[in-house]
């Protein structure tokens, strides 16, 4: 057999006219671990979803073992012996490990009765073969996150697939489990299987993969043998430019506003001491699971720290109460505006005024004139586009929704604003507006703490950048001198 296991060419996909993928290409050979690399919005996820039959492609061709295919759904892909391991875990907690792995494909007797003896036997064999130390009879809810991820991996392997796609398989597991996984991958490829490996951790890619393909802005950029390139070349290719630092107004930081001392929360982050000053933007950069969002949520009071303390303008901040944090002068733009930012069923006006109501009432009676003035003023300042502020906030575009969240945060006149991925999922125009608003805030004497997965964004907006890795503060660098490569190196 000379045909590659998998060959995709010119795969394209649009969502409502917006291209998400323009030219997806990949050639996977037998016995190879092929790293698929790219930043956010590079089109990797779309491409993988098309390979698995979850999305249909608009154009392009996919061949499996030389045969053209057009999958209608994930079961078609499974039948073609392609399986995927995703970062999103979907275990059924009340069932055992074996039941989860063979869900819907349990060995049976007389067609209806589950043959448990056989089920546990084959699961045991599977675990032995992979070298995973997990009891097939253990209930899922007893397992740690890392073990749950291993079960998900075992499930993909149990399909006896020849092509296995791994999307960030190590994001939730530790060093030891990673070694076990790599051994399993090596044994599989030795038997002729092919692996598509997606990871932001470049060091892992260089250890386990032999070939690479880079996507950027929805299109194929380059492909080749990892042995022929070095890490800098790969980073440059993912980022897409030899970077020159953008011109940025230098601000003169003032007095300290927010200070954390040896702040820690078990299982999330530990020993983080950082200071944000007046007129300063402190960026936080790190990979997924580095503890960035957890750090912000803890400062804000959505969770309680186990160690250390938080001070705002020298005064100790009461832990675990967003309402008191707001009163003290803190504000948070959360990572997910739909989940934790907005009340989607309520009006734009109510979403803007929600935090400010408590200073705009007498005996709980809302000062309607004052509330209306606040909303009008915010709509103008944020340049929101809407027909009426009485419409549900769900009727707005993502960018405008994000401005509503920002408006609510600004409405309490915070001393320190914390933004977690403030430009996630919004278009370029809205991004520029958000940057403008953040810059205005810092110029006017505010202290800003910005978390972002996009290195360029952190570099553009921040004055200093703190780099998080696995829940620890690795380094704090001057944004004027740092480069994207440097950030990636430090974080991975």
């Amino acid at each position, binding site marked *: 057999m000379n045909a590659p296991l998998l060959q995709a060419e010119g795969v394209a996909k649009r*969502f409502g006219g917006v291209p*998400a993928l323009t030219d997806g290409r990949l050639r996977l050979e037998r016995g190879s671990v092929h790293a698929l690399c790219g930043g*956010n*919005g590079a089109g990797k*996820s779309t491409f993988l979803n098309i390979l698995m039959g979850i999305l249909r492609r608009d154009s392009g061709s996919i061949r499996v073992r030389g045969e053209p295919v057009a999958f209608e759904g994930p079961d078609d892909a499974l039948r073609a012996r392609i399986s995927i391991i995703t970062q999103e875990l979907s275990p059924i907690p009340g069932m055992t490990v074996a039941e989860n792995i063979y869900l819907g494909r349990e060995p049976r007797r007389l067609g209806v009765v589950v043959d448990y003896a056989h089920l546990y036997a084959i699961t045991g064999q599977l675990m032995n073969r992979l070298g995973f130390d997990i009891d097939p009879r253990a209930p899922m809810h007893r397992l740690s996150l890392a073990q749950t991820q291993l079960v998900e991996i075992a499930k993909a392997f149990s399909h006896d697939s020849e092509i296995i796609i791994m999307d960030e398989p190590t994001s939730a597991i530790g060093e030891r489990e990673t070694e076990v996984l790599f051994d399993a991958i090596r044994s599989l490829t030795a038997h002729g299987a092919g692996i598509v490996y997606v990871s932001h951790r470049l060091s892992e890619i260089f250890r386990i993969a032999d070939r690479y393909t880079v996507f950027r802005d929805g299109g194929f950029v380059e492909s080749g043998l990892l042995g022929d390139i070095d890490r800098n070349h790969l980073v440059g290719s993912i980022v897409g430019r030899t970077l020159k630092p953008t011109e940025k107004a230098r601000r003169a930081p003032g007095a300290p506003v927010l200070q954390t001392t040896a702040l820690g929360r078990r299982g999330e982050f530990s020993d983080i001491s950082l200071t944000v000053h007046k007129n300063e933007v402190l960026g936080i950069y790190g990979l997924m699971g580095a503890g960035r969002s957890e750090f912000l949520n803890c400062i*804000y009071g*959505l969770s309680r720290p186990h160690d250390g303390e938080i001070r705002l303008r020298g005064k100790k901040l009461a832990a675990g109460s*967003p*309402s008191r*944090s*707001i*009163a003290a002068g803190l504000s*948070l733009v*959360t990572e997910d505006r739909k*989940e*934790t*930012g*907005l*009340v*989607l*069923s*309520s009006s734009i006006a*109510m979403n803007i*005024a*929600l*935090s400010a*109501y*408590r200073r*705009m*009432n007498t005996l*709980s*009676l*809302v000062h*309607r004139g004052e509330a209306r003035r606040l909303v009008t003023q915010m709509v103008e300042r944020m340049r929101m*586009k*809407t*027909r009426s502020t009485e*419409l549900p906030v*769900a*009727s*707005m*575009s*993502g960018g405008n*929704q994000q401005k509503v969240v920002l408006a*609510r945060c600004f409405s*309490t006149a915070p001393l320190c604003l914390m933004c977690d991925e403030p430009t*996630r*999922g*919004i*278009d370029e125009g809205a991004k520029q507006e958000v940057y403008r608003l953040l810059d205005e805030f810092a110029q006017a004497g505010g202290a800003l703490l910005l978390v972002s997965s996009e290195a360029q964004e952190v570099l553009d907006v921040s004055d200093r950048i703190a780099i998080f890795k696995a829940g620890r503060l690795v380094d704090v660098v001057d944004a004027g001198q740092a480069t994207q490569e440097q950030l990636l190196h430090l974080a991975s």
Partner: protein
Amino acid sequence: MMTNNALPLPKASGRDAPNLRELYARYGILAALLAVCVALSFANEFFMTWGNWADILRQTSINGILAVGMTYVVLTGGIDLSVGAILAFSGIVSAWLVASGGAYGVGTSVLAGLGVGLSMGAVNGLLIARFSVPPFVATLGMLSAARGFTYIFNDGMPVSDLPPAFLAIGDARIGGVPLPILIFAAVIGVFWFVLRYTIYGRYIYAVGGNVKSAKTSGIGTRKVVFAVYAVSGLLAGLAGILLAARTTAALPQAGVSYELDAIAAVVIGGTSLSGGTGSLTGTLLGALLIGVINNGLNLLGVSSYYQQVIKGVIIVGAVLLDTSRKKNT
């Protein structure tokens, strides 16, 4: 997912033409109520008389008061199954104090009845807000416990021989309007105002719409949740006193399955069981629709067995219309 699936901005051009769909969404339940009234007034000459309407409203007032509290609870995304049982316990405590207990006046017994309702509601609120017991479970437990207390309290016997001053709560008239109807109107008015014009009202919608976002915005979400159950208990206490006064006795089996009628009124009125959207106006119309249909079917001589079937169809039908309406818009 990073995709942006927010709806596009509505076009400004649709503004001039009266939007039929919007009208229907807003007033569909009102139209249904009017249609039923028109049909019944043709089917029965007695339906459109003052006496009959006073009956309808008086009967609706009990369920209506329960439904007001239920609306608050459902707006936060919860449910209160215990209102029927709390109604019975409050009613019997209040009646016993004024009758068998002897020495107490009407004012004291009414306050005691309200106090019983409020405290049982507060227990619900504490379990749900402080100890995170699911509302369905907490209030199901209270349903059973409160009903048990009611039987224990007077050995399963009803309390009758109520003094005229207490019975007056059920049948006194002010300006020709029966007192229960006036009390119901006042309850609706006050709770409508609170929901619309106070920050507490805003917070109820916010907590029901998205409790995480509400918390992020600095709202004390637990206090809001606690308060709606306490309020629901208080109103159940009030309804219990009214029912005892109107029926001239407090029965231990009073109010069995009243919680279901209250939930039905809320749901028919368009309040979403998942919380965040809905209104008291809708609940009022929902309660009236149930009252009118019960009354109409009685007038037409339909057997009570068939009445239950018809009520079931109406509840599901109203919600079915509601979901199809939401899909369209």
